[in-house]
């Protein structure tokens, strides 16, 4: 041991002169810009999906009702309450947040004598509510997928000269990837008119348990082949994923399940109906509403007879929706399952002609009216009366029926911007392509492209197929030559469709006038029910509500033996009709059970 080793340590005495390094006031020390401090929640952006609760490994989050936050489409009305006795500030809740509403401030000191204060709902009135600094997820939402698995489709030139189905359906790999993105919040269920168990059947896809998936589908919907293809899928607009990416392809996943269960297996999985009850119900109209009610009632052991005016069952699903969107064999499979439950469908039987309402009433315990909206509306603009102007629904029906007299001119104009307008436009385009080798179709709609009532895919695919889509055009006159032959449609530019209160009040720029050439004008602006089958007496006896048969929330009409469901009372939508069908069947069952149906 040298002297140096004794003395050297003393050299650090110089540190005596250093200023102290301790922070004198630790409470006012600002944390770093990205510090994971106390939570904030943007109440308006939050949708109450509860993924924050699901991911919290500490069980620190409860979803609770909050005053001022209403339960509505796509928003549960719940908001996260965080227990700071459990939170570890890992911020996984922030990372998983589907809307980005949940964030963190860099605030980190909070003194309170009330322990309950530390169970709090961020976003109400915490002092750091408006503080900008704090943890933000730098990489976006990475803990669940944001991009939808694309659906395989026939290319435009593979499909334009035929009526083959366009969507090929998901492969298993695609479906699993898509199903994986679902966070199982269940916000979609409330939006689905039939309240299908969407998260559960998506889970079945993930688990590759198609049998379970199919059983789940049939609990709420006997039209999964149909809805898996052409459902208006409003559920997807309520999907939590839509806020920072694509909504889950709920519709395609539904189809994927039915694609993977053969018909015979479906009947097997559903099992036999309950024993016969001896009751019988007549249903008028073999569309989605009527057949859903028929399915439910048959499952309950009721003898069901469905009366259908057209040669084949399916209603608008067959005679309205073109084959390239919904192939007939897919529809046939759904109907086959329903028939396998013992439902009798009497086609080509017109009520009011072949059989009278009164007879149905006499011979059954109840009658359900599900007649749909089979008649097309016209614009009644000048020139719209007479040959050369057709209604879309009539033409679509004739095309399905294989009517050889369907007019297919080289050029045609469609009025309307909804799905029906596109259905007829794209069907007619196919017929033109087959007949002339080219498409000559113009579609005019009041709406601008961003606000078309039709699904977005219809616009994309219509464009691809060569349909000339003209937006913001208001029809004024069907042009005819001196012989009365239709030559085209005169339109004005639309400057606005709705007034300030959102009411329909189209305004035109009359200086922007165009004439669209076409030997045929097809009107696809709306539909109506044909209630003439009721007869004058019953029409007079029934109560009505603004032109529709009045029903209560349980589908009862003012006549105790008569129930009504579907488009005719609720407006056009397959899944709504399915939901109605269930409700009507349930009400009928209850009524039968309580002996309410008095003849």
């Amino acid at each position, binding site marked *: 041991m040298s002297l140096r080793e004794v003395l050297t340590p003393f050299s650090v005495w110089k540190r005596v002169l250093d200023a102290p390094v301790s922070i004198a006031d630790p409470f006012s020390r600002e944390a770093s810009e990205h510090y994971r401090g106390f939570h904030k929640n943007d109440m308006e952006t939050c949708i*109450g999906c*509860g993924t924050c609760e699901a991911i919290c490994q500490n069980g620190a989050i409860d979803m609770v009702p909050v005053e001022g936050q209403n339960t509505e489409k796509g928003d*549960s009305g719940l908001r996260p309450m965080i227990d700071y006795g459990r939170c570890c500030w890992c911020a996984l809740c922030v990372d998983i947040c589907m809307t980005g509403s949940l964030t963190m401030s860099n605030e980190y000191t909070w003194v309170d004598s009330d322990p*309950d204060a530390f169970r709090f709902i961020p976003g109400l009135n915490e002092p750091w509510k408006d503080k900008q600094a704090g943890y933000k997820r730098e990489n976006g939402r990475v803990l669940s997928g944001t991009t939808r698995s694309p659906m395989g489709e026939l290319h435009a030139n593979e499909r334009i000269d035929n009526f083959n189905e366009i969507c090929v359906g998901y492969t298993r790999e695609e479906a699993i990837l898509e199903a994986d993105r679902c966070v199982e*919040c*269940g916000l979609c269920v*409330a939006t689905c008119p039939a*309240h299908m168990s969407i998260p559960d059947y998506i889970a079945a896809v993930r688990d590759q348990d198609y049998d379970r998936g199919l059983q789940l589908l049939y609990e709420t919907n006997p039209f999964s082949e149909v809805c898996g293809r052409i459902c208006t899928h409003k559920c997807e607009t309520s999907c939590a994923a839509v806020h920072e990416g694509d909504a889950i392809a709920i519709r395609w996943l539904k189809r994927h399940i039915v694609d993977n269960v053969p018909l015979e297996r479906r009947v097997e999985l559903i099992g036999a109906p309950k024993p016969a009850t001896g009751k019988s119900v007549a249903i008028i109209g073999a569309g989605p509403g009527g057949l859903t009610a028929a399915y439910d009632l048959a499952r309950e052991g009721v003898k069901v007879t469905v009366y259908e005016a057209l040669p084949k069952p399916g209603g608008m699903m067959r005679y309205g929706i073109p084959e390239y969107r919904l192939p007939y064999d897919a529809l046939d499979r759904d109907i086959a399952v329903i028939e396998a439950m013992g439902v009798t469908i009497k086609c080509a039987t017109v009520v009011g002609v072949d059989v009278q309402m009164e007879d149905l009433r006499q011979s059954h315990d109840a009658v359900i009216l599900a007649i749909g909206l089979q008649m097309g509306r016209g614009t009644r603009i000048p020139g719209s009366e007479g040959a050369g102007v057709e209604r879309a629904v009539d033409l679509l029906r004739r095309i399905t029926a294989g009517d050889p007299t369907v007019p297919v001119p080289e050029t045609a104009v469609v009025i309307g911007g909804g799905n029906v307008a596109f259905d007829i436009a794209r069907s007619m385009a196919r017929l033109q392509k087959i007949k002339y080798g080219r498409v000559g179709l113009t579609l005019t709609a009041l709406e601008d492209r961003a606000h078309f009532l039709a699904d977005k895919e219809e616009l994309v695919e219509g464009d691809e197929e060569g349909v000339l889509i003209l937006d913001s055009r208001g029809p004024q006159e069907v042009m005819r030559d001196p012989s009365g032959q239709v030559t085209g449609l005169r339109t004005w530019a639309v400057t606005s469709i709705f007034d300030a209160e959102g009411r329909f009040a189209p305004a035109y720029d009359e200086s922007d006038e165009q004439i669209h050439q076409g030997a045929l004008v097809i009107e696809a602006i709306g539909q109506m029910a044909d209630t003439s089958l009721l007869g004058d007496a019953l029409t007079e006896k029934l109560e009505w509500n603004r032109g529709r048969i009045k029903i209560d929330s349980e589908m009862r009409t003012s006549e105790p033996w008569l129930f009504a469901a579907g488009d005719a009372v609720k407006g056009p939508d397959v899944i709504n009709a399915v939901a109605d069908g269930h409700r009507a069947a349930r009400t009928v069952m209850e009524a039968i059970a309580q002996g309410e149906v008095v003849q």
Partner: protein
Amino acid sequence: MMRDLHALLTPRHALGPLEIRRENLAFVTLPASNLRGFLTELRDTQGFSHLVLLTAVDWLEEGQFQLTYMMNNRARDLTLGVRVMLDRTTAQMDSIHDLWPTAATYQRELKEMFGITFPGSPRLDEEFILEGWTDLPPYRRDFDSLAYSQQTYAERPGRVTHDPREYMKSKLYPGG
């Protein structure tokens, strides 16, 4: 390298197939009775002198405990996970504390946490982490730690949560 070694030692020690995880990590299963001989040979002639860890995996559904002896050859940067499957009801294995004295600690922990016994291992029955534990060995899969915590500790009252889907149903369509 790992494959050569496996081929070389398989006949003597009845090794199972070699499961290669990555270039320098593989796993192999062998009968419990062959373990001592195999580890000794690995250590003394193959350079696997470092016992990285010894632990157990409870395959409750299969009625087996898996013991994993993680062996490392530092010079060649090779790690071999040597697996022995034990009957879960017997749950007994030869001690290797004489090969690696540090193994006694692992074995003591395995006794306490999994109830796997290693006859002859020093201080095997001395408490290691737990004190006065009388329940199932807690790292066994059939010991439910959540239930235990719920029975043992009181939850501060006042917490209620709601499932969004059910809550929306109650608010928007209570009748279904």
